[in-house]
């Protein structure tokens, strides 16, 4: 067994182990941090397969962006910082049946597929080549993805700003003391 095979198994154990922790952890913050190890392990796996750009993008987008947002969201939305956010197990029977069916299907696919291995081709995918392809052959998908992301950003800003209209002064129509009726005073 050569070094890259050892690395492959170590990273696999890291990914599967942390994914299991993520699913079974009762505390949602523990799940989020376990997810970090799963995503970073995937990045290591890409790096092992000579896909440096994909590995770095995985790290930047998922660990640096999405995971931080998940953590931020969980911490901000829970009532009270120190109340531990617990998850509980529901719908045990249907989910077991569903998982069993999916498991059987996956194993069936895995055993019946003819896996062909290819020798490693020389020459890493360079950033220059990737950029040129994106701006020539794949121009339309690239632009469409960009417009889609822009729409998502505008939508998010709109939703965030409509929750709290900025022009209304807060508590303008409410009396200072809720017990007193303002008409009685005047």
């Amino acid at each position, binding site marked *: 067994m050569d070094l890259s095979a050892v690395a492959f198994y170590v990273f696999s154990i890291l990914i599967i182990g942390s994914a299991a922790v993520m699913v079974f952890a009762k505390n949602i*913050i*523990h799940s989020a*941090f376990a997810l*970090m190890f799963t995503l*970073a392990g995937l990045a290591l796996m890409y790096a092992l397969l000579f896909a*440096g*750009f994909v590995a*770095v*993008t995985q*790290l*930047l987008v998922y*660990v*640096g*962006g999405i*995971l*931080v*947002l998940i*953590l*931020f969201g969980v*911490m*901000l939305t829970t009532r009270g*910082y*120190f109340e531990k956010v617990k998850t509980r197990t529901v719908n045990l029977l249907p989910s077991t049946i569903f998982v069993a069916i999916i498991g059987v299907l996956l194993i069936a696919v895995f055993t019946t597929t003819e896996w062909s291995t290819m020798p490693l081709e020389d020459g*890493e995918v*360079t*950033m*220059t080549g990737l950029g040129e392809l994106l701006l020539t052959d794949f121009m339309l998908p690239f632009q469409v993805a960009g417009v889609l992301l822009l729409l998502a950003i505008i939508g998010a800003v709109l939703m965030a700003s409509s929750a709290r209209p900025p022009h209304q002064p807060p508590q303008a129509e409410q009396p200072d003391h809720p017990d007193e009726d303002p008409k009685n005073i005047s």
Partner: protein
Amino acid sequence: MQQFLESFLPAGPLVVFVFSIIPLMIILVYALFAIWLERKVAGHIQDRLGPMETGGWHGWAQTLADLVKMIQKEDIVPAKADRFLFKMAPFIAFAASYGAFVAIPFSSGYIGSMIDVGVFYIVAITSLLSVSIIMAGWASNNKWSLLGAMRTAAQTVSYEVPVVVTILSVIIVTGTLNLMEITEMQTGNAFLGFLPSWLIFHSPFMVIAFVLFFIASLAEAHRVPFDLPESESELVGGYQTEYSGMRWGLFMLTEYADMLLLSLVGATLFFGGWNSPFGSFMDGPVWGAFWMLLKGMVLVFVMMWLRWTLPRLRVDQLMNLCWKYLIPLSFVNLVLIALWEMIF
């Protein structure tokens, strides 16, 4: 460098080991020096002397004494803290910072890995730092720690945008992400006959790009005026409030390593990296390491200087500065640099 090591070391893992801990040695020696320097700079800016006693000459051994004190301190974990995450956070923080040094060309003879994605990798791996700070802040089970961690998350995610856009505007000029190749492009003294052909002299917009990069990198390194994650006066110490002893020391080391990292990236992108400012005079791999570290240290010194000059921003001012000034400016600057490249 690898051949040089193989000439006197037995081949195999030992060479790789020595090869990969060279940046660690640089960081450790630098941190000892930089913490002492920070105290001296602070002292002299405030018209006092700073440490003078320990070790004799200008208190040079002050940091060493602090280190010994920190190592023998008790490792305290708060009773209600999340033990596992609390203990793990400093290590992830330092690993993220140290991992980024792989792509830094310390001299023409030494770079950890000639990866194609270079500076993009540095941006990506340092994002682990904010995750580890959130981990530390949450696991401490302390109001101030958590507030510091939340500020870090917001600050790092926001200020990553101007950093990446200014780096992108340099990439437009160089056409490569590999920091070694970027440095090699800046060799020579072609500009105006005597100025080194560093990228900062490439066009007036590069100066703007550098200023934007430096401001944003101050925020990325959590330095004053952007040190809200650990502001002592309001949050006691932010995410590191509950840490003591060597675990706190690791956070301190990470912070200083991060300063050096961003300064070295700035030096490589804008100030010619390991190139000598005098053309072929004082050139070569060893002088290269000297110039690289000197340029980095100058930027680190400016960071210290700013720390004792400027007051801290408020949270809303921090966000305003980033989203209303730095990001639009950096995008406009990106377009201008691209136009300059097209015309000239």
